[in-house]
C-alpha cells in the first residue's frame, strides 16, 4: 500500500502540482503524451527536451525519483520487445559494438523506448499527484459521460474487494490440496473465474439496491465545484508548451 490516503499509485503531498485542479492536469498530461508521440523518431535532442521538461515537473511535484523508478517496472515488457527489434527487424544492417543489427530496427527500438518511457512517466506523475477521487471529478468536469465516470469509480472502489474474494477462493482451493500447475487444472480455474463473475454480478445488484434505498435516481450528484485561476491554467500549460516547441523542432530540423 502506498500513502495512507488513497491508492497504491498515489504519493501523498501538497506541492504545486498536487494542488492543481485535476482536469487541468489530465489535459496537460494527455497533450504532453500526444506531442511526444508526434515527435519524429529520427530526432534525438527534442526527446532530451521532453525528458528535461518532465523531470522539472517531477521535481516541482516533489515525488521521489526512486518512487517513480520502482513503478516504471510496468514498462519492462516493452523494453524487452524494444531490445529484440534491432535483431529481428529487416532492412540495411549496421554495426553496433561489433554486432550486426538492423538499422530501421534500431531506430524503431529507440523510438519505442523513448516514447514509452516518457508516456509511462507522465502517467505515473499524474497518478502520483492526483487522488483517484479527484481524477474522477476531473474527468466529469471534462464532460466525459457520467456513466463512464461512474463505471471507473466503481472499479476503483471494488477492485480490492473483488481481488480479496479471488485471494480467499485461491487460499480455499490450495487448502484442499489444489495445485494449479498442470493444464489439467485449468477447468477448475475457469470455474473459479465464473464463480467470481457471478458473485461480483450479485454484489452489483446488492449495491444497486443500497443505492436505490438512499434515493439514487440515475445519476451521481456532482459534489464539488472548482474555481480555476489563470495562474493554474498557465502552470498546467507549461509542460505541453515546452513539448510543443520540442516537437516542432523535431519536425522542422529533420
Amino acid at each position: 500500500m502506498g500513502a495512507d490516503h488513497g491508492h497504491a499509485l498515489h504519493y501523498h503531498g501538497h506541492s504545486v502540482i498536487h494542488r492543481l485542479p485535476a482536469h487541468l492536469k489530465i489535459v496537460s498530461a494527455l497533450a504532453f503524451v500526444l506531442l511526444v508521440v508526434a515527435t519524429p523518431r529520427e530526432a534525438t535532442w527534442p526527446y532530451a527536451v521532453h525528458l528535461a521538461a518532465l523531470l522539472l515537473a517531477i521535481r516541482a511535484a516533489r515525488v521521489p525519483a526512486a518512487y517513480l523508478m520502482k513503478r516504471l517496472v510496468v514498462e519492462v515488457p516493452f523494453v524487452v520487445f524494444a531490445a529484440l527489434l534491432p535483431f529481428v527487424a529487416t532492412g540495411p544492417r549496421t554495426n553496433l559494438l561489433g554486432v550486426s543489427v538492423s538499422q530501421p530496427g534500431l531506430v524503431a527500438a529507440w523510438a519505442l523506448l523513448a516514447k514509452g518511457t516518457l508516456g509511462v512517466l507522465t502517467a505515473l506523475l499524474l497518478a502520483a499527484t492526483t487522488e483517484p477521487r479527484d481524477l474522477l471529478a476531473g474527468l466529469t468536469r471534462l464532460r466525459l459521460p457520467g456513466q463512464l465516470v461512474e463505471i471507473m469509480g466503481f472499479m476503483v472502489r471494488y477492485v480490492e474487494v473483488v481481488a480479496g474474494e479471488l485471494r480467499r477462493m485461491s487460499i480455499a482451493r490450495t487448502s484442499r490440496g489444489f495445485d494449479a500447475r498442470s493444464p489439467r487444472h485449468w477447468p477448475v480455474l475457469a470455474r473459479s473465474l465464473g464463480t467470481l463473475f457471478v458473485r461480483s454480478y450479485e454484489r452489483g445488484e446488492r449495491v444497486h439496491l443500497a443505492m436505490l434505498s438512499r434515493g439514487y435516481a440515475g445519476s451521481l450528484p456532482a459534489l464539488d465545484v472548482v474555481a480555476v485561476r489563470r495562474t493554474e491554467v498557465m502552470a498546467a500549460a507549461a509542460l505541453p508548451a515546452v513539448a510543443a516547441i520540442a516537437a516542432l523542432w523535431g519536425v522542422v530540423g529533420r
Partner: protein
Amino acid sequence: MTTPVLDVRGLTFAYPDGTRALTGVDLHVHRGERVALLGPNGAGKTTLVLHLNGILGGDAGSGVGSVEVSGMPVRQDTLPEIRRRVGIVFQDPDDQLFMPTVRDDVAFGPANLGLRGADLETRVGEALAVVGMTAYADRPPHHLSFGQRRRVAVATVLAMRPEILVLDEPSSNLDPASRRELAEIVLGLDVTVLMVTHDLPYALQLCERSVILSEGRIVADAPTREVLGDAALMGAHRLELPFGFDPAATR
C-alpha cells in the same frame, strides 16, 4: 394513539418463481420504539425489510397489503420521500459504501434529496460525528476496518435524517469491542429502530420489544425478555439462546 412510524397491514408477497415469502404480516412500530425482528434463516425478514422502503412491493409487486410510513403509503409516487424516511443499513458495508471517500458516501443520500453546499456539509459532519468517524472523512471506505465501515454505513443513512432506522444484522462479523461500540451508538440515537438480528443478547440489550417472523408470519410480538424467556416459543421457531446466556439473569 398517534400515527405509527411504521404501519404494515396484511402484507403478503410471493417472489416471481412462486416462493411465498410473506403471509399477512401486520407490524406497527411507534415513535421512539426500538424493535427487534427475530426469526430463523429464510423466515422472510429481508423480504419484509425491502418492502419498508418500496424496493419490493408497492405498485410493482406481486403482493397484497399495505405499508405506511408516518401515514404516507409506499407507492411509486411517494418513493423518494419514503426512502428518506426509512433508512436501511444493509448487512455488508461493502454493498453500501461505494463512493471514493467516506465523506462522499455519507453525502450521497442527502445530495439525492437535493441538498448542496453548506447544508450538505452540515449533514455529513453531524452524521459522521454521531458514529465517531469524523477523523476518517477523507479516507476511501476500503481502507477502513470492518467495524468502522459498518459505522460509516450507519452514518450514510443517518445523514438523511430518517424517521426509522432499519438495521440488517448490525452485529454480524463484528469483534466484541466493535459490537459494543455500535450498541452505544444505537442507544445514543434519538430515532425509531427496527433491528433484524440473530444475535439475541444484542436484541435484549438494545430493544425493549421483539417480533418473531417465522415462515412469513408474525408469530410473536412481546417484550424482548418475555420472548427470549419462552422456551417453547423459541424452540418452535428455530431460535436458540447462546450457550450460558440467561435473559433472566441480566439486570
